[in-house]
């Protein structure tokens, strides 16, 4: 009996011993086999997955911390084809809810041809996704008798959340902000100029799928947050005034820029027409070409008489004239063999330089330019930044055109016409920058819209930059006085009770495709600043092709006054008398 059991026990022990030894032997064999490295590599592939982590796009705020551009959640809706229980229900539901083609979805789900995942739609709003999720839950919780082979089911639907750019203020400041398309890139404005900083740096990393190897995902910083110099309330007020003025004066388009002349900070920049960047796909409905997106920086035009402030500044600075230099206006001035006339074709008789500016006499300014000479005239124009982009931190700035002696298309008559802003192309922002030199004691501030950038919790503010001193401080003061007196003497519609302002109107003829000018269609402009003794703002108004009147003094000047009336309230600027009394205390 014992012997009988003995051999059985030995057999079992032997079998167990062989199996027990075979397992480690096989382990050792595999580990040392030629395929060991390959197998190890394959297993490593399943231990990790390569994942690209995209930082959230940086936010954009106005100078007072109001959100101008943020991020909102939207969803990619897809189908995990292997999990689909009822292709008909899925295709039908998606076609109805998301307005997609039933056949396309159904055919892909029933004949996937190796496809595992189908993206049916992207950038789907949360409302639609909630609707689908609710329906999915309802179908999953049907009574058990519904659980037949052809039961309705939305199994397999996958919702992947991600961000899309959102502009809470809709069209407000859209010409400054630009927009972000679904490809994640910024177009126009700040979004394009600071695209890299806003987008941040995506990080591709190996993420362990093995929970034993779980570790912190790398903390990738979000894209930089931008704080703009723009004041939302001023921007809204200026846009409202611009839109109203376009209607009131029957103008085709327009632009208003408000800048702090001491720092170059752009407080508002309105351009019309504009659009809601949340619906950027309507771009073509609003703009014929890219230069219309932000007319204030991208659309050069012949500014007309507003340019006279630069001509007169150069003449005063060089000592060519003084405010009291007399001039006999005969109504015509011959320059380069071509006669130049006044805006009303009249002769204004004896005038001094203040009178020339006050009555905006082309003949006088052409004479001043001729006295200044082409070399000095164009030298001053260049010093004021005319002919070059200002370098404002917005995408798509145009440089305008300043023909100079030596250019193939420059003629001696250009000196005379350029003196009163014809034959030279500038953008509103160029004129604002040039005027800042007159308003700011001769120092010309570089216009900019970025106040600060926040990265990794730290805010870096942009200091003001100055692009030279085209004129002396004394000249700037003289010019301020001349322009303030001009406005007061002509009882301009640009005046605002309680505030002394300096400024100049502009009415520019528009060249036809033939190259000739017409008197019936004009660009009307006004540039002004104030308060004269301590300028806090420069305002540029440009209304294109108004139909109510062709004159800047009747169209643009009152718009300037409306803007200033808003500015003094929103910026907290007391009337001159109050301010001076307070300063004297």
């Amino acid at each position: 009996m014992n012997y009988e059991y003995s051999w059985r026990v030995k057999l079992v022990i032997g079998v167990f011993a062989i199996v027990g030894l075979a397992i480690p032997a096989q382990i050792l064999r595999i580990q040392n086999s030629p395929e060991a490295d390959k197998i190890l590599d394959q297993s490593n592939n399943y231990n990790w997955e390569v994942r690209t982590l995209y930082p959230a796009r940086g936010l954009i705020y106005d100078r007072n911390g109001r959100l101008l551009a943020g991020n909102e959640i939207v969803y990619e809706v897809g189908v995990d084809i292997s999990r689909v229980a009822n292709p008909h229900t899925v295709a039908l539901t998606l076609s109805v809810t998301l307005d997609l083609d039933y056949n396309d979805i159904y055919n892909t789900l029933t004949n996937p041809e190796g496809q595992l995942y189908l993206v049916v739609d992207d950038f789907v709003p949360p409302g639609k996704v909630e609707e689908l999720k609710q329906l999915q839950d309802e179908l999953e919780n049907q009574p058990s008798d519904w659980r037949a082979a052809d039961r309705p089911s939305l199994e397999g639907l996958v919702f992947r959340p991600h961000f899309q750019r959102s502009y809470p203020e809709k069209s407000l400041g859209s010409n400054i902000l630009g927009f972000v398309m679904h490809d994640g890139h910024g177009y126009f404005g700040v979004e394009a100029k600071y695209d890299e900083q806003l987008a941040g740096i995506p990080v591709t990393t190996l993420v362990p799928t093995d929970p034993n190897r779980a570790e912190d995902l790398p903390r990738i910083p979000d894209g930089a947050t931008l704080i703009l110099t723009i004041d939302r309330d001023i921007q809204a007020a200026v846009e409202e005034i611009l839109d109203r003025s376009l209607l009131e004066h029957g103008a085709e388009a327009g632009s208003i820029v408000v800048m702090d002349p001491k720092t170059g900070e752009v407080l508002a920049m309105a351009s019309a027409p504009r659009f809601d960047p949340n619906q950027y796909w309507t771009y073509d409905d609003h703009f014929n070409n890219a230069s219309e997106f932000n007319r204030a920086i991208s659309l050069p035009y012949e500014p007309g008489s507003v340019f006279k402030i630069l001509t007169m500044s150069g003449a005063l600075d060089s000592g060519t004239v003084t405010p009291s230099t007399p001039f006999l206006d005969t109504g015509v001035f011959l320059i380069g063999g071509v006669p130049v006339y006044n805006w009303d074709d009249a002769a204004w008789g004896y005038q001094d330089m203040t009178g020339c500016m006050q009555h905006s006499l082309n003949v006088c300014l052409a004479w001043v330019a001729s006295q200044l000479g082409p070399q000095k005239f164009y030298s001053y124009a260049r010093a004021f930044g005319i002919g070059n982009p200002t370098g404002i931190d917005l995408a798509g700035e145009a440089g305008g055109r300043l023909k100079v002696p030596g250019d193939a298309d420059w003629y001696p008559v250009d000196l005379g016409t350029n003196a009163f802003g014809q034959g030279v192309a500038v953008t509103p922002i160029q004129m604002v920058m040039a005027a800042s030199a007159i308003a700011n004691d001769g120092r010309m501030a570089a216009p900019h819209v970025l106040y600060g950038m926040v990265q990794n919790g730290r805010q870096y503010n942009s200091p003001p930059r100055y692009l030279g001193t085209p004129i002396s401080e004394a000249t700037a003061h003289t010019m301020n006085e001349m322009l303030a007196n001009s406005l007061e003497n002509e009882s301009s519609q640009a005046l605002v009770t309680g505030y002394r302002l300096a400024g100049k109107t502009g009415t520019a003829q528009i060249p036809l495709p033939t190259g000739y000018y017409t008197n019936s269609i004009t660009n009307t402009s006004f540039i002004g600043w104030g308060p004269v003794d301590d300028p806090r703002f420069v305002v540029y108004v440009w209304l294109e092709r108004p139909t109510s009147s062709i004159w800047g003094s009747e169209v643009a000047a009152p718009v300037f006054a409306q803007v200033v009336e808003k500015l003094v309230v929103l910026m907290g600027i007391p009337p001159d008398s109050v301010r001076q009394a307070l300063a004297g205390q």
Partner: protein
Amino acid sequence: MDFVRNITQKTPWKTQQQLFGFVLVVLVFAAMIAGIYLNVTSRAAVLGREIQDLEAQITEAKRANADLTNQLGVLLSYQSMAARAEAMGFTLAAPEDIEYVTIPGYAAAEPVDLSEDRPNDQKNTLPDAYTQSLWEWFEVQLVTSGLSGGGGQ
């Protein structure tokens, strides 16, 4: 050695008993090691999964936070605020409506400062226990105990 030889020659059952005992001790020891190893490994796996869940929750929370910031932006937008102010009977002030008074020490509002005082996001916040192997943990414990032991009183 003679003693051992004597015992084995005289009492074979004792030899078997001792062998059995030795095997049993080895088995118990191996079982203990395996048990500890399994316990630590399973706890590490559970914690690893929790980490992955927390990572997902952080991502979700950041996304929700950004979305809420945007929703707040919509609620506080100019259009929205102007409509609410108008509904409440407020009107825009004109220059002539405003009276200026001197307030000693008053400083005009400066543009916003969005600096944050927060810990460095780049720093790995995961405790070592989540990433150490058992062997590394033993090493650390040995070094730590050695250091504290050498500190003296």
